């Protein structure tokens, strides 16, 4: 293996570098903070001749995504990047990519959604797209963004999957923070990721036979299309694990596939969450563990498809009495997902959920330790009402109920 470069990079730069290394053939783009820098970088790569790709700066995110739709139709390895309102604006074209089984990778620089008019990070934008059918992988570090984009193309282009992927990176916390990362060489990436070769009816060409988005109404084939779509999304569970393992054998870095369980053995309280906040939780877990407290964490990397079985085996093995779900939304999507998964466990732990870090509010290690301590208080006693949905938004007074 040739020597890789160690370098400092912002998350946006890393995403653009990853797309370049993956030799994308097309980007449809429209700027929106915090992910605008990605399209600027890609455009510069094209100008400098470091990347050969079609590029359209569209007149809106919906147009950008429709241009991507056409590019995937034409058999191009396609890339897009957006955030917040932009992601919501292109929502209409998202399920269409899934129904047509079109592989592509899009970076979502997670940002809060209006109103109030927030500009900073939370994950409401991509969580709102959870039922579009897109796969969603959440990143913890800048290195993980770079690696997930490269892994991403291998996942989505697998014939058993062919479902588009959102690589979700916390806006500003990841997109704008400098990190010392390892930049793989083009040779390494080429060895791992072969060029995209779509199937014979998967792309359009003059005289070729294909019909995308056709009416499924005659004899009503709609359910059959959706059945195949669900099957493909389930296939992704296996493929994400396989690709991560393969990636590790090429690059020596792994993200534990679908989810990362950290110090969960014998943990009484486990925090479940996703994204950059898990780096803070990891640090807090180490502090608590060194003080002899039995805590652990589970980083959900793949929110879609949701790794229910793997989560249950981790939770079941840990003997945790209390789960605390942390998420950067105000409505508890991950909380509901985890809570629903626990139903299959005979002796399941109690579960509480917190909406934290909304619109970029800083969550520090002592906040996490505080949450762990509260969970310990509640885990032993019957102080929490049974049967109610214990989801709270953390506000400035740090009170549980807000």
């Amino acid at each position: 293996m040739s020597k890789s470069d160690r370098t400092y990079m912002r998350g946006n730069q890393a995403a653009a570098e990853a797309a370049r290394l993956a030799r994308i053939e097309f980007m449809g783009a429209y700027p929106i903070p915090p992910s605008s820098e990605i399209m600027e970088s890609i455009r510069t790569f094209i100008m400098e001749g470091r990347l050969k790709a079609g590029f359209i700066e569209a007149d809106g995110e919906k147009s950008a995504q429709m241009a991507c739709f056409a590019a995937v139709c034409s058999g191009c390895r396609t890339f897009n990047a957006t955030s917040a309102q932009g992601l919501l604006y292109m929502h209409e074209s998202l399920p269409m990519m899934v129904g047509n089984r079109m592989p592509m990778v899009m970076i979502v620089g997670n940002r809060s959604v209006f109103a109030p008019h927030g500009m900073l990070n939370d994950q409401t934008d991509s969580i709102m797209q959870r039922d579009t059918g897109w796969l969603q992988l959440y990143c913890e570090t800048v290195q993980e963004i770079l690696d997930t984009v490269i892994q991403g193309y291998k996942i989505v282009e697998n014939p058993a999957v062919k479902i588009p992927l959102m690589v979700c990176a916390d806006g500003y916390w990841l997109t704008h923070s400098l990190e010392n990362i390892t930049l793989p060489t083009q040779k390494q990436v080429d060895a791992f990721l072969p060029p995209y070769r779509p199937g014979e009816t998967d792309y359009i060409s003059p005289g070729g036979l294909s019909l995308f988005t056709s009416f499924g109404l005659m004899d009503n084939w709609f359910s059959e299309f959706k059945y195949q779509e669900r099957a493909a999304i389930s296939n992704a569970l296996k493929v994400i694990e396989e690709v991560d393992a393969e990636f590790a054998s090429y690059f020596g870095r792994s993200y534990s596939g679908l989810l990362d369980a950290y110090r969960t053995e014998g943990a009484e309280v486990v925090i479940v969450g996703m994204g950059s906040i898990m780096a803070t939780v990891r640090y807090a877990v180490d502090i608590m563990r060194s003080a002899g407290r039995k805590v652990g964490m589970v980083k959900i990397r793949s929110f879609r498809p949701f790794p229910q079985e793997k989560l249950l085996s981790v939770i079941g093995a840990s003997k945790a009495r209390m789960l605390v779900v942390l998420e950067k939304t105000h409505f508890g999507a991950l909380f509901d997902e985890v809570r629903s998964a626990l139903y299959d466990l005979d002796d399941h732990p109690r579960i509480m959920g917190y909406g934290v870090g909304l619109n970029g509010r800083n969550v520090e290690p002592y906040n996490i330790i505080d949450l762990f301590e509260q969970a310990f208080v509640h885990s032993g006693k019957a102080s929490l009402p049974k049967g109610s949905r214990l989801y709270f938004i953390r506000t400035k007074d740090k009170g549980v109920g807000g």
Partner: protein
Amino acid sequence: MQKRFREIFQVKDELMLAGGRSCIGCGGGILTRMALKAVGRNTLLSSGSCGTNTTGMFPVGAMSTLPVPVSILGGAGAALSGMEVAARTKGLEDANILGILGDGDAGDIGFGNLSGCFERGHKVIVIVQDNQGYAATGGQRSGTTQIKAWTRSTPEGKSRPPKYLPLIMLAHDAPYVATCSVAYPEDIFAKVKKATRKENQPAFIHCITPCPTNWKNEPSMSVEVARQAVTCGIWPLWEYERGKFTRTRVPGKPTPIEDYVRLQGRFKHVTEEDVEEMRSYIKSLNEKIDRFLYAYSENLDSGAESNKKRRA
């Protein structure tokens, strides 16, 4: 005229097959057939709106001769841009990138990205199948619905004149803009042929396509309605090709607007005053076209003269 028809008959390749789901008497069928004859097989087609019906339903496709990525409503301009850039990336420089859009898609919900497509100057051909309303959703008004016309959402008749899309697209510095009518298929054929020249792209062709379902005309009279629209002057035929602006059919003495109105149930309610208002719309529209003729004439002074002669 006969020579121009012979040109169409020489094209034996029928790209539009049976299996489309258009209504009986749909003008869009004639337009699509003529347009596809003119562009030939080396084409990537995208359609939306009622055009989706024309392409057929899974698993029967009326256009299994051509690849058809159907975009979402209001995304056709962007999808065409993407197809053009991707085709170039894939080495298909000489393929025609053709979009057959409804008037709602082109003029209303998708106008932004059609405008973006023309501003960026993609080498595409956009043909608007203008049935003057949201026909696919059951027949509500659109931006191009004719003045005084009944639709399901203008039960008393539309009060405002339609937005005149061809001139808006001309303002995008498009090298080729034309209007046509399904009553003159040889004209459609000739204009689409011109639009396939790369130096004429992005090309915009706006065609009036009667919709018996919502215009409430006899399906057998669709072509007659499209003809009357031209002869009465409410749908002037013209062409702009790289600085040259011409009326491709000089109306001569216009036929009475009443004849056009009488053919269609959507004008059943119109009063004398309404007809008068339509007449003044026709007058102002034709004056506008004549002003463009004048503005684009080589010698501005003589241009005015020749316009006068043409109108006479």
